């Protein structure tokens, strides 16, 4: 029943072991976890009677961070927001909300209930995003756990097992078993365990056996870890059949499945109870009166003494003279707004590409996933819709909202479609996982971030060096844009970070700019 590992697989493993040895030599690199600087490091001077005026261009998370912090210290802030709402890509959709996608305006028709919402932009907060979490605490934003990886959810690939969806736990248990068998075989060969002492080799081998649930002969022959074919409580459980390694290897989805809880999604993830925009509401409880809505910036001119901002609101052009300006308008849109920025600045603004991420969601007529032992988490498929998210909240309620597509890199595939084509594509894709998906869902919403009014793009893309990191030139352009113009105008937002698409990046970019400005103000007042 158990197939031996072939010679080719063994040779591949030899190469892989060389790779591990090389990685070990790299040493400390293994200690690097993506983390952010400690929270609450912001120590801004309270101005007292030395009031200064601030313009904040854009009411996204970075702009509101700036407004909140500066207002606390006695600054006179005005937030100019081009759209009808604050939050930017922190967008929670509920009953009646406008989805302002140009060419595809929609109103969200979900049932009007507190748990019936969809986070169409930011959706997850890792526990390591300390600065954002510190604001959640300060603003009394209640958090709950977000379930990201779920072993009872499905993995589906037309190339694997005739397209039959299998549970994530079947995929990962079998994959780990086979990988462990290969590794154990390698450890039992004299050449390969040579780099290790006897004690190290023994420790490693015991971990490998445990990793894959190998039998006494260091072979994988299936595992109860994948759950039972039957029984398990009042009767002894019956082990499920193994899935052949070769069958699993027909799919390349292990790249996502085996790494779902790594990197940014490795820490415990959270979401605000009631929707991600509770963070925005939290900020607006303090600075809401400072926001001007549907106010489109038309000009930003930096002078020796400050910044002159012009904006259109209600068909009238207004002007605003301030001491400092914090600007989170997407750089690709700022290029078209009158300004007097230096040319190296403009070069950097033009360099940044627009993100193309795309999301869709459906209202489920009942929580069909709970009937399948699924509570939260993600089903993965090798379709263009990619992901199906079951809500972490509203457990056992009548209905829920499922994410029906999340294409974070090649989002133009769906963005270029009509609304009807998009919906049909997601229905067809998810029928492969839930055969009657089409009948189970209703009231779809789709969000092509590339076309959302006043943003026209998802998170900024700095690196064009596909997967090979930033070039020296890109680093230079980035630092050019991070530095203030004449000490008066600061670009902020996750676009001014090396890790865009996270709220933490937006918060930290704002805090960096605030600290920089604070140092100048302290010097002036000294």
């Amino acid at each position: 029943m158990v197939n031996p590992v072939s010679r080719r697989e063994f040779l591949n493993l030899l190469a892989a072991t060389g790779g591990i040895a090389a990685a070990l030599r790299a040493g400390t690199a293994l200690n690097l976890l993506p983390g952010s600087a400690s929270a609450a490091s912001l120590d801004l001077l309270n101005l007292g009677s030395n009031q200064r005026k601030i313009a904040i261009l854009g009411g996204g998370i970075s702009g509101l961070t700036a407004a909140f912090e500066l207002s606390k210290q006695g600054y006179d802030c005005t937030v100019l927001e081009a759209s009808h709402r604050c939050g930017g890509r922190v967008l929670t959709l509920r009953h009646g909300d406008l989805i302002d996608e140009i060419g595809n305006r929609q109103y969200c028709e979900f049932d009007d209930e507190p748990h019936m919402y969809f986070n169409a932009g930011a959706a997850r907060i890792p526990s390591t995003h300390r600065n954002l979490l510190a604001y959640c605490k300060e603003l009394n934003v209640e958090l709950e756990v977000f379930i990201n990886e779920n072993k009872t959810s499905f993995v589906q690939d037309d190339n694997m097992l005739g397209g039959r969806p299998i549970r994530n736990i079947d995929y990962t248990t079998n994959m780990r078993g086979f990988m462990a068998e290969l590794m154990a075989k390698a450890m039992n060969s004299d050449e390969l365990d040579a780099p290790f002492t006897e004690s190290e080799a023994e420790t490693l081998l015991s971990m490998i056996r445990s990793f894959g649930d190998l039998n006494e002969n260091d072979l994988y022959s299936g595992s109860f870890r994948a759950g039972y074919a039957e029984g398990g409580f009042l009767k002894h459980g019956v082990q499920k059949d193994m899935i052949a390694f070769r069958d699993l290897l027909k799919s390349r989805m292990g790249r996502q499945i085996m790494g779902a809880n790594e990197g940014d999604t490795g820490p415990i993830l959270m979401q605000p109870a009631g929707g991600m925009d509770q963070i925005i509401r939290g900020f607006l409880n303090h600075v809401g009166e400072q926001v001007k809505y549907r106010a489109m910036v038309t000009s930003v001119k930096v002078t020796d003494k400050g910044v002159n901002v012009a904006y259109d609101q209600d068909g009238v052009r207004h002007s605003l003279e301030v001491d400092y300006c914090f600007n989170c308008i997407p750089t690709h849109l700022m290029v078209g707004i009158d300004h007097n920025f230096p040319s190296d600045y403009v070069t950097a603004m033009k360099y940044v590409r627009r993100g193309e991420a795309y999301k869709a969601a459906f209202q489920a007529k009942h929580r069909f996933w709970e009937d399948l032992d699924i509570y939260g988490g993600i089903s993965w498929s090798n379709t263009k819709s990619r992901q199906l998210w079951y809500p972490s909240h509203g457990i056992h309620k009548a209905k829920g909202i499922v994410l029906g597509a999340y294409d974070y890199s090649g989002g133009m595939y769906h963005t270029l479609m009509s609304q009807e084509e998009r919906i049909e594509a997601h229905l067809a894709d998810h029928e492969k996982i839930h055969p009657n998906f089409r009948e189970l869902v209703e009231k779809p919403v789709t969000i092509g971030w590339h076309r959302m009014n006043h943003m026209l793009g998802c998170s900024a893309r700095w690196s064009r060096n596909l997967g090979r990191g930033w070039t020296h030139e890109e680093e230079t352009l980035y630092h050019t844009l991070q530095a203030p113009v004449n000490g008066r105008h600061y670009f902020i937002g996750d676009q001014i970070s090396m890790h865009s698409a996270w709220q933490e990046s937006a918060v930290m970019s704002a805090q960096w700019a605030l600290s920089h400005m604070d140092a100048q103000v302290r010097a002036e007042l000294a």
Partner: protein
Amino acid sequence: MLSFVPLDVRHKIWGLANRILLALAICHLTPFTSAAAEREPYDDRYCTTCHGTDGRGNEGIEAPRLAGMEDWYLRRQLKNFRAGIRGYHPMDTAGIAMRPMAKLTDDSIADIVAWVGSWDYQPAEITIEGDVQSGELLYGVCATCHGMDAKGNAAMGAPALAGQNDWYLVTQLSNFVVGYRGRHEDDRYGQQMAAMVGTLTDESAIRDVVVYINSLETR
């Protein structure tokens, strides 16, 4: 005035007042669509998001200058985008990006054309270099329709070129040359233009002719 009211309630009152004022302002100034009275209204005057302040163009998002564009030309192009006569070729990425933006009613198009006509016009920034003398020779063919001064000719359906963003002229000439624009069977004027670009045999010829257009007085 409201100091006795708690902050969060004040914010709500403020928000409500703002929404009422805003709704009134929008009703008054711009056409809008609304599925239900309490729903957030929207309008189709979103052009400046991409096309920049007063429609002066935005190279960052490849959106050309609209200010100064003839009303008949703007109307025709919006309708072409709407019908898929323009922005149909997969390589015309900016054209494809424009197509959904032009999902407009005739009334919205009329409103936009009038709105564009109200914008302050300032000459476009010069961003490219080339051989102006070579460009002048090449421009001879163009002058037939677009005029010696590149100010356009409504009778011929040929828009003004002087004053347009030079990077946009380069992109469009290239598109006509390689067939990303002006090959659609219903694009009568586009076909006319595609037939005229034969003298622009390479990239430098395109740049030269645009540099010559740059040298002409704008308005």
